[in-house]
């Protein structure tokens, strides 16, 4: 009779890890899921599993080794109540990943929708102060007729994939063992029998629809910023979660304002007399009109600061430019000439 070591193809000195690997390597080839109706494969699987059950348990392995060397009678594991199902319940974690379906069971049902990207042009003021901007997005939305399930009222699961929408097979290329899962060729991946597909969406579960979305642009949004709106992307298939809407923000330049982080810069032109004598000028700020006090003796290029009038509590910096009159009236000329004489 072959020893359990022979069955697994390992030496009697094999480590627990070597035993596990050897078992997995061989068991995936003869697993009942992969060989439905093949009695020989099932028998081989049971044989491998029994060997593994004993050798993977240090205590049982000690007893087995002792029996093998004539110390004790060989434990008859075959007499214990045992089935493929029992074994999978006990050692199922070993197969996670070996068979495509085990991965898929852990994931949410259906296929998640794709993320949809869009570019949103936002005016300078909205980007700085925040606000809502309407955007029209053309993308996949759940079919109103079937509710996203892709099937009509008398839905039947696809006979080839059993409704999972996927078929999983061991790769047959070059004798390699990894699993390849692909959309079911019979139903195209939606899991429904062709004849019972929703007529409105053809079984996809989604339709192309233009949606208008009010995007909340946060205060202080920079040019090039990305906003992610969860669940507003492409609809998922067969109950899968929707993707996200990813919005790339482009901020339009403004003819009055420039931005530098949380600071806002703007220019103001003042008459020469206001620069010399001081006074007040009207100024455009992000939040509306304001009155700016010009101190007497302000030079061209001076910077005046409006505290807290920038973005998120930053300042508004006003660059002063003195406007020299290009043309003078006769009286103005007289006065300037008099001023010049006084200055010597």
């Amino acid at each position, binding site marked *: 009779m072959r020893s359990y070591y022979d069955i697994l193809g390992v030496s009697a000195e094999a480590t627990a890890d070597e035993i596990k690997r050897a078992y997995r390597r061989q068991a995936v080839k003869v697993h009942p899921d992969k060989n439905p109706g093949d009695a020989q494969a099932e028998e081989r699987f049971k044989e491998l599993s029994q060997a593994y059950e004993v050798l993977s348990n240090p205590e049982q392995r000690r007893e087995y080794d002792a029996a093998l060397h004539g110390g004790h009678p060989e434990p008859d594991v075959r007499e214990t109540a045992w089935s493929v199902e029992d074994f999978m319940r006990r050692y199922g974690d070993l197969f996670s990943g*070996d068979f495509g379906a085990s991965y898929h069971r852990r994931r949410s049902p259906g296929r998640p929708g794709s993320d949809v990207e869009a570019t949103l042009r936002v005016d300078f003021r909205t980007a700085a102060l925040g606000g809502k901007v309407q955007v029209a997005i053309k993308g996949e939305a759940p079919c109103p007729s079937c509710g996203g399930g892709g099937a009509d009222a008398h839905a039947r699961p696809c006979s080839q994939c059993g409704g999972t929408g996927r078929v999983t097979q061991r790769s047959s290329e070059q004798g390699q063992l990894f*699993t390849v899962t692909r959309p079911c060729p019979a139903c195209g991946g939606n899991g429904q029998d062709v004849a019972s597909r929703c007529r409105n969406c053809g079984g996809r579960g989604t339709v192309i629809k233009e949606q208008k979305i009010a995007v909340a642009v946060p205060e202080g949004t920079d040019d090039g910023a990305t906003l992610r709106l969860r669940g507003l992307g492409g609809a998922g298939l067969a109950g899968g979660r929707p993707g996200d809407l990813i919005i790339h923000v482009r901020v339009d330049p403004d003819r009055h304002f420039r931005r530098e982080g949380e600071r806002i810069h703007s220019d103001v032109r003042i008459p020469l007399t206001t620069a010399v004598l001081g006074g007040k000028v009207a100024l455009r700020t992000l939040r509306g009109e304001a009155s700016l006090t010009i101190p007497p003796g302000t030079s061209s290029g001076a910077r005046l600061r409006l505290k807290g009038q920038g973005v998120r509590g930053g300042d508004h910096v006003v660059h002063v430019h003195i406007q020299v009159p290009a043309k003078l009236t006769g009286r103005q000329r007289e006065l300037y000439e008099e001023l010049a004489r006084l200055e010597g």
Partner: protein
Amino acid sequence: MDPASLAREIERLRRKWASVVRGEQESFEVPVRWTLSGAMLRWHVAFEDVIEPDIDVEILPQVLVIRGRPATRGASIQHALLPIPPGFDGERPRIRCEAGYLEICLHRLLSEDGA
């Protein structure tokens, strides 16, 4: 498609289909790289401590999702998202696995006139 446009397209598809792997629980994305030679796009995925039977290749529209379960008990599942750029055949990838190193080749689809 020249390599620069291909790189842009791959990045676009990665962003578009990031949702596919976003919900992966207890897993992390492994770095991948690609090379373009002639009519073939080759993806290279280096899995750490993953043996061949524990690799799962899922073919989805526009992307391949690769998952690997490391042999070490308790280690996180490793995954990779490989875009299938337009013009390449994602239905019939050629997959080769050697000691935890996975190479996936996608052939360029030929038009009817063979171009």
